């Protein structure tokens, strides 16, 4: 019933959800994920179409080039997150959310308006490293496995616990010796890296890339993944991302009512399962 290409998008959804989850674990409602995702995609699109040396005109785009793109995108997004994280993470709660949305909007408008990034049309004819969706499935599966494994590990490490402590009470965490600024920044940078890596693959998978992906809707939808899945442990966002990405597709048979039912799910989900599909151990 579910098509391979949908599986690919589901894995992408899970990755983006993890990117939202990371700062949220540290109590930071950052909605910048689609921005870093777009940056990752743009880096990949530019490199693979503009740098002939990478093998963009080969029949099959070399995996090493893909890896290289990944590294560049991660570096760019990570660096950017590091630079803007410092001032931005001083903001709290909804203010942080709005500031990050503002950044995403700025990025979108600038990318859509500058010819270097393909302007309104975007960059297209992006070379394919894989013959079909199966390749992407494996690549995304690997990426997700790595990120999920890292998150799971992180949660058991002092850093992960410090993140959760900051969400509960930032001030108390500071008084217990947690360098909250540093922890928040790490979470933010990690999130940017995950999103950018997901974007690199997406640019190839989508054959084309434009900055419309970086919009407010996307920010909120990925947040919905996390909330519905559960925001206390890594499995929550993964499940949320998988389920909510698949849902609109699974609802196709009901035709015009599909988005209404989708809306109902995200309306009723938090009401009936306030902790999300995956609960934390305690309480």
């Amino acid at each position: 019933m579910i098509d391979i290409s949908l599986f690919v998008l589901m894995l992408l959804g899970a990755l983006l959800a993890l990117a939202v989850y990371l700062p949220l674990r540290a109590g930071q409602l950052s909605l910048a994920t689609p921005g870093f995702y777009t940056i990752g995609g743009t880096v990949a699109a530019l490199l693979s179409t503009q740098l002939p040396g990478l093998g963009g005109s080969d029949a099959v785009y070399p995996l090493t080039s893909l890896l290289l793109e990944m590294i560049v995108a991660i570096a760019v997004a990570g660096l950017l997150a590091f630079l803007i994280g410092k001032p931005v993470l001083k903001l709290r709660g909804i203010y942080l959310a709005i500031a990050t949305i503002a950044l995403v909007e700025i990025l979108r408008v600038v990318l859509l308006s500058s010819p270097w990034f393909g302007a309104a049309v975007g960059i297209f004819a992006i070379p394919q490293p894989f013959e079909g969706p199966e390749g992407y499935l494996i690549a995304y599966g690997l990426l997700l496995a790595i990120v999920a494994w890292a998150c799971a590990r992180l949660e058991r490490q002092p850093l992960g616990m410090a993140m959760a402590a900051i969400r509960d009470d930032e001030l108390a965490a500071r008084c217990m010796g947690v360098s909250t600024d540093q922890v928040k920044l790490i979470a933010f940078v990690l999130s940017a890296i995950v999103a950018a890596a997901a974007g690199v693959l997406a640019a190839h998978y989508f054959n084309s890339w434009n900055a419309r992906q970086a919009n407010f809707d996307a920010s909120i939808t990925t947040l919905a993944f996390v909330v519905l899945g559960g925001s206390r442990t890594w499995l929550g966002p993964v499940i949320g991302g998988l389920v909510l990405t698949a849902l609109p597709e699974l609802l196709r048979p009901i035709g015009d009512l599909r988005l209404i039912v989708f809306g109902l799910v995200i309306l009723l989900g938090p009401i009936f399962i306030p902790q999300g599909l995956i609960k934390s151990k305690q309480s």
Partner: protein
Amino acid sequence: MSAPTSTNNLLEIEQLSVCFGGLQALDRVNLSINEGEILGLIGPNGAGKTTLFNVITGLTAPSHGKLRWQGNSLAGKKPEQICRLGLARTFQNLRLFRELSCINNLQVAMGSNNRRAALELLALVQLQEKADAAAASLAYGDQRKLEFARALATKPKLLLLDEAAAGMNPIEKQDLQALVQRVRCQFKITILIIEHHVPLMMQLCDRLAVLNFGRCIALGSPEQVRRDPLVIEAYLGSQR
């Protein structure tokens, strides 16, 4: 180069003042805490005790005055840095990591995921059975004990306890007293404690400092302080 100060002064507070708008919460307070002692801080409500804690732990910037920790200034240090220097505190209004389990609360403070060590600390405050319960689900008194253990988990040299015995009944207060004394010996730490329950403080503390309207009005052994007319008038009341 500053001359080395006398070694047994862990923390020195000099001419410390704090203003909130027009309100002088602390007024030229001088106090030095000796290594290994239990120093009690008492005074009427709003005298500035918690504010003093806040200044020491870097949460409130002093408007005036100096803090010296083992001879080095604490000026401009962030709370987390101060904590890592070896000053840990509890909060008057309980600030646990409410969603985390008791054991995770301690692990955050320890900065490690060593379960065994955390369990030992929990056992110290008799909460080992609640190890995996969320902190928010504990009764008030138990939350206080957990905070105490959490502060200990940072391996402090100086432990600041704000109203450590609030919400406990007399027998529990006695337990706490024993616990504090034991902790001092076992962990070789110095303790600065705020508490309104005077009998407890009399028995527990080596010295008592009394704040009133932000000023230190008395400092000395419990006996001296108990007899100080200023203290009786401002804090103890005549019947005690």
